[in-house]
């Protein structure tokens, strides 16, 4: 409309130079923007640009954190497969696998803070991923303990508690036998 107006006003004047840059308002121009040109990025001023950058980063961090939090799941599946492979007998192999299955979650849990250190951000909510991470690792730990139990290495049976009990003493004592000859 501005253009039409200008044209109509131009009827009265011979020429006019409009120094206002209307580049930000493309609608006011007759010429369309070149193909592939995005005006939006040029439109931001410096502050808005950095804010936008940060937003993107935090988004990315959040995404990554969730990814990291989900990582033990793969591990868990793999461990499960290994355990199934190892069988239920006490071997060097099965014991090794079981103990690694126990150790991995524990060490991972110990380093929860470190794992999420790179994604620390005031704007990123890390509680969710952390909880997921912890839960999955606890799951891994549970799997390890379950495996330990199936191997019979957990004192969950009565036999584990009585096997070292000394025999009961006799109250009475009886000696004798065939006469010495």
């Amino acid at each position, binding site marked *: 409309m501005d253009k039409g107006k200008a044209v109509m006003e131009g009827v009265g004047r011979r020429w006019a130079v409009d120094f206002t840059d209307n580049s930000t308002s493309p609608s006011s121009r007759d010429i369309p923007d070149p193909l592939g040109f995005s005006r939006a990025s040029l439109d931001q001023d410096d502050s808005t640009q950095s804010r936008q950058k940060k937003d993107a980063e935090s988004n990315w961090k959040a995404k990554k954190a969730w990814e990291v939090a989900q990582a033990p799941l793969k591990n868990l599946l793999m461990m499960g497969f290994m355990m199934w492979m190892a069988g239920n*007998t*006490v071997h060097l192999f099965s014991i090794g696998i079981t103990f690694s299955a126990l150790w991995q979650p524990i060490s991972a849990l110990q380093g929860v803070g470190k794992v999420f250190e790179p994604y620390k951000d005031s704007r990123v909510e890390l509680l969710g991923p952390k909880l997921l991470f912890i839960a999955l690792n606890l799951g891994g730990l549970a799997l390890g303990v379950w495996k330990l139990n199936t191997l*019979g*290495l957990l*004192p*969950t*049976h*009565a*036999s*584990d*508690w*009585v*096997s*070292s*009990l*000394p*025999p*009961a*003493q*006799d*109250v*009475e*004592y*009886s*000696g*004798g*036998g*065939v*006469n*010495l*000859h």
Partner: protein
Amino acid sequence: MAMAIRAFLIFVLFLSSTQFCFSLYEDQVGLMDWHHQYLGKVKHAVFHTQKTGRKRVLVSTEENVVASLDLRHGDIFWRQILGTNDAVDALDIALGKYIITLSSDGSILRAWNLPDGQMVWESSLQGLKMSKSILNIPKNLKANKDDLILIFGQGCLHAVSSIDGEVLWKKDFSGQSIEVQQIIHSPHNDIVYVAGFVGSSNFYVYKVNAKNGELLKDNNVELPSGTYGELLSVSSDMFVVLEDTRSKIVMIDLKNEEINYKYSHISDLIKYSSGQAVILPSRLPGIFALQLNSHSILIKVANEGGLVLVEKINDAAAISDAVSISEGQHAFAFVQHEDNKIYFTVKDVDNWNADLLKERIVIDNQRGNIEKIFINNYIRTDRSNGFRALIAMEDHSLLLVQQGDIVWSREDGLASVVDVTTSELPVEKKGVSVAKVEQNLFEWLKGHMLKLKGTLMIASPEDVVAIQAMRLKSSEKSKMTRDHNGFRKLLIVLTRAGKVFALHTGDGRIVWSVLLRTLRKSDACERPVGLNIYQWQVPHHHAMDENPSVLVVGRCGPSLAAPAVLSFIDAYTGRELNSLSPAHTVAQVIPLPYTDSTEQRLHLIIDVNQQAYLYPKTPKAIDILQHEFSNVYWYSVEVDNGIIRGHALNSRCNREVVDEYCFDFRDLWSIVFPSESERIITTTRRKLNEVVHTQAKVMTDQDVMYKYISKNLLFVANVAPKARGEIGTATPEESWLVIYIIDTVTGRILHRMTHHGCQGPVHAVFSENWVVYHYFNLRAHRHEMSVIEVYDQSRADNKDVWKLLVGKHNLTSPISSYSRPEVITKSQSYYFTHSVKAIEATSTAKGITSKQLLIGTIGDQVLALDKRFLDPRRTLNPSQAEKEEGIIPLTDSLPIVSQSYITHSLKVEGLRGIVTVPAKLESTSLVFAYGVDLFFTRIAPSRTYDSLTEDFSYALLLITIVALVAAIFVSWVLSERKELQDKWR
């Protein structure tokens, strides 16, 4: 903790299943075992004649051993052991190359090759009647070029060819009811005189043609009085015998085909003689010896039939047979014993004035009296006659005396061990070096370098020999102090002679020996016998500075009614601390599980009147017993009546003379086995000192069974009366074996089982909660072994983990037999190839290590068999889990792996017993097997999981460590340098 043990045990099982025989390598023989050979008390000895050249002596002993000994050192050249019922009656040399032995009451005649002891021939002599057995090998008696041997045995006179043992002729005297006492071969004509008595006074002589056994003439004479003892032949036609009042000597003369006799009073020969005379059986030409009131009297028979006293020997003396020293000259010897000296005298039979030899020899006074002497002459370099004598002593030891000295001695009493116990050695004290030879550093290094060479397999054959010698002679194992592992101990053995020996477990040497005064023949004690040996005092907590001591229980005679004798011996020094000859008898000795403040164990000695006497006789002991008064029981097994009775302590003895150490018993219960169907043959119970680690047995499915562990269980094996004899005397239908497990406090029968068609002998071992017994199955014609395990069902409910976790259970509280716990048993049977002489189970310090059965086989070896093979849970197809637990698939017979003989290539001849003692090291058990031989070793039933092996090379380890450290330093320096260079670039 439990987990650790379990994981560990599984690991051990895993190890043991990979290699379940515990064999030795060849070079390990003798490292931890020793084997000593003995002979027993010598009965007969024959020296090799000059002709046969070699310096050897042949002996036969009361342990039925025939052996050839080296005269220089007393070593055994060869040795043959006859069966236990095959007692040697006579021994002689025939043809100069065979040894002839007559055994089994004159029914078996054998010839052995002199140089190597191989049996040449054997001949069995049949007869109908038991009689005296006489072996007579005449010189120059030939029939068809055969040299004949004359044997009287089983009531018959046999002539046997000495070449092949064929019986050439036989003359039966059993119809004549004559007791034949002498066979004389007249050297001039081939005639044999057989002399003997019918009744005690009717003297008979038969004249037999030696060529064909034809009876030429018989003659008899009725003596006016009876006779006493044996007929002794003085010359080829003269006999002497004692008249039945034992104050006159009867001389019987066979000259001119007639029998003349003559009586002479002993008092005519010796003035003021009184007492009972005995004719000694020494064979001397023209002389006989009488024993009268502990004097020995030598009497010469003069040509006219008169008697002349030639020598009176004071004190107890032993007289040898005569030896021919030159043509027509005979010598004999006698020895007298005085304190620690013996007087050895050799005299010429015909010339009494001069001694051929008179020597005084100093002797160890722990050897007792001289029992027998055998002499032999040799030509000295100056052509004169020398004499040597073989002397058998009261303690069954054997000495060779020559030139006034004891050349060698053998402790052959150790061939008849009666009982064994052990004692710890003294603790090593600081500053006192006990090792005889302390090695210096150089030798130590040299030894380790040699070992290293051996490990790296670069040792030369000489080095290998040196290494082996070094290992065998290790001073470590024969030190006289306690070691950390508890391998060094003292084995204290009581022998039949009444001598107690302490043997070092390291090398079997005798540390001390003592001939017990109480077990020697005396006026008060005619025929003493040693019965058992017990640990009397084992100081460990309270009385550390006191020496341990042992109690030896004996009896003054073979009958139960003979009074008891007790000896207390210091186990370190062998000093007899105290000896008692109490008035009471001894039928049972019960070591009680209580000790007093000085660690003396309380013992109850029960006499034939069923009264108990408490030892030690101290008021404190009474206090302790009073405290446990109602808990002390006693059971008696009356084998003849088939009754087992239980008794409990009742009160002080009701007697005129107050004896506060004497207690009465009251009868509690009795089990009467029906005598028409069952006879007791074996009873077995657990060892008092056995340690059990746990009461629970974990099954494959994590289930728990509680073992019924009681010290008061008795295993009884009964057989049918008809099946009591040897195997094969009863048919399977009329034989059966009934076994019982009885609680001896309450008399409750926990288990009863019948094996039909089976019979004894039964050998059994009771350990923890199981019994293993061995018997014969007549139907299968094979030996069998069975196992019974007893479990406590009343505890089976203790399965709540939480209750167990917080300790809310009564599994460890003391248990009374009167609570009548419900028990279940599991049992299984297997075939077993061998006959068994003894059976024992290994024992370890804490009872954690799995058990092995030690089986003394009929071949006198000891076989170690894992208890896992005798597990009632074995099935044909065990599940995977069961296999992992170590359960072996069930087979019908027990495997015998030849590597699992712990005696490896050796034999413990005449094996009678096996004793196991725990070492301090849990994995290891010490084993002592005794018979005629002694054998000791240590075994690890689950391998030595708690120590490095003997041949572990510390030097190699050290060198490896040093090399590694050096390598680390070198590579560190090199890498530093490289880094620096890199930085400059």
